[in-house]
């Protein structure tokens, strides 16, 4: 049973604090902390994006053009770490912070002060990690997976391990907060099976985080003790095994992939019904599919390691387990399509990004299925095919969903409508250039171009040049997004209505736009017909 959310000890009866420091540094308000997360994620997105521009500039032509190979390796490593831990994950946490209490009818998160701490750890962790680029020995350059023995050669290992510990602590606290909020603070009448799919996706994601972040912490702690305290966890010379690191890392790493995509599934499941003006097709199936994907994510980790020489039985098990994930994922894709089928659809910017998500994420899913096949993976392993695959999943998947969510909820956050024209300009530029950027990388990979190299055979020159042009223009297109955001927050004259979108349903649309500083101080009366799925029995 859920209990009504309650008054916490903080400044419930007042508006936002006047002082900048009080409001943003000491905040316990879920909306302000959500905003902080989102601004932080956007900043990191551009820092990680600038690394990507450096990578694509170097790869524009064969031969070493702009940088030394070690610096190139630092860029690939930092690009991944910043985008995964600094941009995608905090963006989802920001969206969760903003929307989960509004969607379940709670006045705030269950642990508001811990929420503040979860956020404020992050900037320090990333300053620490990015500062290693300026150290005499340079930053980490062994790839974001930090496989030993290569990663143990880095002089900045201790800094990066500490930064990862901090990010892990932040993620675990954030996950605990989200689970405690969803399980304990729902308004009366908001049963679990009436919750919006976005809330469900975050509940399941939070459990994934709680299970796997400690495993990452364990793995990097062992790296640290191997380098500085004379242990031999991963050192064959002392009886250890470097492949063991890969097992522990990917026990974290594969669920991590789903941590970055399940909330995206939730977002798409909110947006598609709104703009199709129909309840989502197969609500229960959608929820169970998310849970099923989450479960399967724990038993597929070794598909990242087919090439290290696993026993045949293990390769076959992990191959079939991986292919099994396409079943619940297929359920989701078909249900989104079925939701649109026969709906009164309109194509506002959030819907456009959602439709692009469904199509392009499916391409990423299919290439994933290809590399799940052990014999085929021996060809694809460590090639640009892999790079193309995971960028389809994470850029046109996770990032497009985050952008869709920002357009969808921005009027609720700011009280102003964004410019639909410029939103669409942003969309069409993004969707064209992202394909110019990543699609040729499939061909490069199939032709044998390895990942993580600053120079390559001249045979790969043309597709690399096309990919780089796509990369520069995709990067530039994101500046339009910043323009739309700034215009919407500060200059837009068009005020948003409370419901914002004609087909929008759920508690978050019953509060005024912009959402007041405090909402649902008294638990709302939940009426089933107000909910997106409350009156649907399937």
């Amino acid at each position, binding site marked *: 049973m859920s*209990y009504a959310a*309650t008054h916490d000890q903080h400044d419930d009866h007042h508006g936002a604090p006047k002082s900048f420091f009080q409001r943003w540094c000491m905040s316990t308000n879920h909306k302000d902390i959500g905003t902080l997360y989102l601004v932080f994620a956007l900043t990191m997105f551009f820092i990680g994006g600038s690394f990507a521009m450096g990578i694509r500039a170097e790869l524009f032509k064969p031969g070493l053009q702009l940088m030394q190979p070690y610096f190139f390796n630092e860029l690939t490593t930092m690009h991944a770490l910043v985008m995964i831990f600094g941009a995608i994950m905090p963006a989802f946490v920001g969206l969760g912070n903003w929307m989960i209490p509004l969607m379940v009818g709670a006045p705030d998160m269950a*642990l508001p002060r811990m929420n503040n701490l979860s956020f404020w750890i992050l900037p320090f962790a990333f300053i620490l990690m990015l500062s290693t680029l300026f150290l005499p020995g340079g930053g980490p350059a062994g790839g974001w997976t930090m496989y030993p023995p290569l990663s143990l050669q880095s002089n900045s290992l201790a800094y990066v391990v500490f930064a990862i510990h901090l990010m892990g602590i932040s993620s675990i606290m954030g996950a605990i907060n989200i689970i405690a909020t969803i399980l304990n603070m729902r308004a009366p009448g908001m049963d679990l099976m009436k919750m919006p799919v976005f809330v469900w996706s975050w509940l399941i994601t939070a459990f994934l985080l709680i299970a796997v972040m400690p*495993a990452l912490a*364990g793995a990097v702690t062992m790296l640290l003790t191997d380098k500085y305290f004379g242990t031999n966890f991963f050192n064959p010379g002392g009886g250890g095994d470097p492949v*063991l690191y890969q*097992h522990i890392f990917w*026990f974290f790493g594969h669920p991590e992939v789903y941590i970055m995509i399940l909330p995206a599934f939730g977002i798409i499941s909110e947006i598609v019904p709104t703009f199709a003006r129909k309840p989502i097709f197969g609500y229960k199936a959608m929820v169970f599919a998310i849970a099923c994907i989450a479960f399967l994510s724990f038993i597929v980790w070794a598909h990242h390691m087919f090439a290290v020489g696993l026993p045949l039985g293990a390769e076959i098990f992990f191959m079939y387990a991986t292919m099994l994930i396409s079943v619940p994922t297929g359920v989701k894709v078909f249900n989104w399509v079925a939701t649109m089928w026969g709906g009164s659809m309109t194509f506002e910017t959030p819907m456009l990004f959602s439709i692009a998500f469904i199509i392009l994420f499916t391409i990423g899913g299919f290439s994933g299925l290809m590399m799940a096949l052990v014999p085929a993976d021996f060809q694809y392993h460590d090639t640009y095919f892999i790079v193309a695959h995971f960028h389809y999943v994470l850029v046109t998947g996770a990032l497009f969903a985050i952008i869709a969510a920002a357009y969808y909820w921005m009027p609720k956050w700011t009280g102003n409508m964004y410019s639909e024209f410029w939103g669409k300009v942003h969309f069409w530029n993004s969707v064209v250039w992202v394909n110019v950027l990543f699609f040729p990388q499939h061909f490069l990979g199939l032709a044998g171009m390895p990942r993580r190299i600053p120079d390559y055979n001249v045979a790969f020159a043309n597709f690399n040049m096309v990919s780089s042009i796509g990369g520069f223009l995709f990067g530039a297109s994101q500046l339009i997004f910043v323009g739309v955001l700034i215009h919407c927050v500060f200059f837009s004259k068009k005020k948003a209505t409370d419901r914002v979108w004609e087909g929008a349903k759920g508690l978050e649309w019953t509060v005024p736009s912009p959402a007041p500083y405090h909402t649902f101080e008294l638990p709302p009366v939940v009426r089933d017909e107000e909910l997106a799925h409350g009156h649907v029995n399937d």
Partner: protein
Amino acid sequence: MSEHQQDDESRKGVNRTVKILLVIVLVFFALSFVQILLMK
């Protein structure tokens, strides 16, 4: 149920949830080390 009773119930629920989740965190942290023993 008065507002204060709701307060207490909700807070107790939060505390219980947090304790359970912390135990899960510790178990999985330990598990990453135990894997080594299992693999040997």
